[in-house]
């Protein structure tokens, strides 16, 4: 596609609910990244894939967070047993080379 597509754009979850956020990267982009952006803050790295391999998951804040990219294209970020501190915008980005990311518009998650 023309850009990185994320869905849903907005998600309201009750505390304790599981959520799944989807990212469709730009076609042909090998590298895929997830970032978390709290209100009024810069994005913070969560995890990185090269094709289907998850090469770095050092930014995932807890074992409630899980990401996958099984066929090296679409990626899903799953958050189990959501907590209020998980409320943020979750950004996905893709790149051919690892530099010069293209970000999607993000999914705004609100946990109530």
């Amino acid at each position: 596609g023309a850009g990185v597509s994320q869905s849903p754009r907005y998600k309201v979850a009750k505390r304790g609910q599981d959520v799944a956020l989807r990212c469709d990267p730009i076609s042909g982009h090998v590298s895929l990244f997830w970032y978390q952006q709290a209100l009024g803050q810069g994005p913070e790295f969560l995890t990185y894939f090269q094709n289907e391999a998850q090469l770095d998951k050092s930014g995932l804040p807890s074992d409630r967070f899980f990401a996958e990219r099984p066929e090296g294209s679409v990626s899903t970020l799953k958050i189990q047993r959501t907590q209020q501190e998980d409320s943020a915008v979750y950004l996905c980005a893709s790149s051919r080379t690892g530099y010069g990311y293209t970000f999607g518009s993000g999914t705004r998650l609100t946990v109530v």
Partner: protein
Amino acid sequence: QQQVKQSPQSLIVQKGGISIINCAYENTAFDYFPWYQQFPGKGPALLIAIRPDVSEKKEGRFTISFNKSAKQFSLHIMDSQPGDSATYFCAASTKEGAQKLVFGQGTRLTINP
């Protein structure tokens, strides 16, 4: 631990003026320094980037100045326009962790007409 410190938090500039945003870093292994522009409800978009082997890079009205010894870099927006009103983020990454960008806290820029 904040590895990239950005200032100011907010900035108001008159149309036609020069907007200057500064960043300082601690990790001397950083070797890639991009700037991103973010509009409300959108993801960050890459504006311009520099590597430490040059002291300045210019693209249109946007210039990065880089001071390796001081571990500082800055974004200059010449002839600032109302359409430049957005939040700007500096970032950095290492060669080994090229895929992991460390972002500054952001600067909300407002250009008054």
